[in-house]
């Protein structure tokens, strides 16, 4: 076989790594490449290429496990590796940083749930991904209580707020926050759950919201006025307490 061009070599090498990620044995796809790899004293060309195939797969599996530790705990080592095998075959990394490698994993789980996996798994993955995104979201100075003290009472109804970039809201039909606390709790019954995820300082948190808080925060995040936020609450004075809690948690900035 004539020597491959650099482009041909790289394309063949990539197919050998990525078309059947984590597969044992030497994929037939790699045959043209194996012809230009000499054996070493102790390894065949296929063994040598296999070292790279293994490193490719397991490095990304490790990165995914770091970003989705609860999903990994629910599936176990073997189940998580199987999930990663299917995921990487469909969604090979297309970003220079491994941080983005798991971006499509929650949707992949929703589309192709691993056999026998609990129904909450995709939403648990969404929660874990939201926490990763909050961890390194853009730093923005959050609103402080003192900032509002200067606002005259007459201006309050028209006040508008926005969330800082590290805030996310997650709605699930499952109590994924309970599973996050205890991934062994696989048999939880369905329960409509709304969570907010946020970062305070450098630490990421999530907390369950009741119906009133969820509706009010949705209005805040939609850029509605404080008066419109009060409208969705049975007791308007609740709005003040909620606003104070959100500000203390560092969720908001001025619109």
């Amino acid at each position, binding site marked *: 076989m004539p*020597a*491959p*061009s*650099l*482009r041909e*070599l*790289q*394309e063949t*090498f*990539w197919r050998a*790594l*990525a078309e059947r990620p984590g597969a044992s044995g030497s994929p037939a796809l790699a045959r043209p490449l194996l012809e*230009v*790899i*000499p054996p*070493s*004293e*102790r*390894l065949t*060309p296929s*063994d*040598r*290429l296999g*070292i*790279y195939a293994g*490193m*490719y797969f397991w*490095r*990304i599996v490790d*990165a995914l496990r770091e970003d989705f530790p609860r999903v990994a705990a629910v599936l176990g080592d073997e189940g998580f590796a199987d999930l990663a095998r299917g995921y990487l075959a469909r969604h*090979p*990394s*297309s*970003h*220079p*940083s*491994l*941080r983005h*490698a798991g971006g499509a994993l929650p949707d992949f789980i929703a589309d192709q749930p691993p056999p026998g996996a609990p129904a909450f798994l995709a939403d648990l993955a969404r929660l874990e991904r939201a926490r990763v995104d909050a*961890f*390194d*979201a*853009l*730093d*923005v100075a959050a609103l402080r209580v003192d900032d509002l003290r200067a606002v005259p009472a007459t201006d309050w109804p028209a006040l508008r707020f926005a969330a800082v*970039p*590290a805030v996310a809201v997650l709605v699930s039909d499952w109590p994924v926050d309970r599973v996050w606390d205890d991934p062994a709790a696989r048999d939880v019954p369905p329960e409509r759950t709304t969570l907010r995820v946020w*970062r305070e300082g*450098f630490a990421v948190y999530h907390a369950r919201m009741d119906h009133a808080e969820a509706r009010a925060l949705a209005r805040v995040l939609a850029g509605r006025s404080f008066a419109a936020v009060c409208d969705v609450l049975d007791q308007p004075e609740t709005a003040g307490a909620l606003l104070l809690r959100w500000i203390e948690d560092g969720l908001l900035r001025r619109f």
Partner: protein
Amino acid sequence: MFPYLGHGVGLRPPHFPRVMEGSARADWFEVISENFMIRGGRPLAVLERARAAAPIVLHGVSLSLGSTDPLNATYLDELRGLIARFDPAWVSDHLCWTSVGGHYAHDLLPLPFTEEALRHVVGRVVAVQERLGRRILVENVSSYLTYTHSTMPEWEFLAAVAEQADCGILLDVNNIYVSAVNQGFSADAFVDAMPPGRVAQIHLAGHSDKGTHLLDTHDGPVIPAVWALHRRAVRRCGRVSTLVEWDDHIPDFEVILAEAERARAAEGEALDEATDACAVSA
């Protein structure tokens, strides 16, 4: 030219609390560039703090200098952003390819050492240096296979890239040792072929013996044979900024600092040996 910074420490997440409390002290810090290509949060705050305490160096793994894909303009813009914000003493990446067809392997994949690859890599290094407005360092990688159509040894390829692209060399003596054992070449010959004026940084690290091959795992102390190679490199190249890499089973900061001090002592001894040898030959 690239400054001499002494003996640095690779800054990894387990050490971040030490940086934030101000107790992580070293001649300089090396960080993985891609880990800081983010929008905000703790890692960037840590890097701000580290940079206030000591010089830093940005060490990349995804520049993909050997790839036949176009250079990733977004990546280069992000790297430029980090350079502008943190003013690193230098920027380095690897003599390998990590991406093709827009996909990233997140691994340092081996190049064939051919004239075609040489021309290609030289052009890429020149383009990157123009884009970044500075010269970079290029590092030799550990490898587990070779290609029958390579027409020159790795050391000749590396030296030619540095010469033709006018870049510096980050000489990883552990990678030389690992590849030398795996490919059956002389590690000494590799070191002896390095152009002294271009070697601006040395990496040391531990590796694992898998029985059939050595694996570059960065998970333990440097072995005596690699220390010996380091001394050979110092005798040839003189004082070079040096760093012991540790990326897995990362020990306490003090253990890594102790390895940096060991490298400092070894450098001193090697320089003395070189001076003695000159005196004898004179």
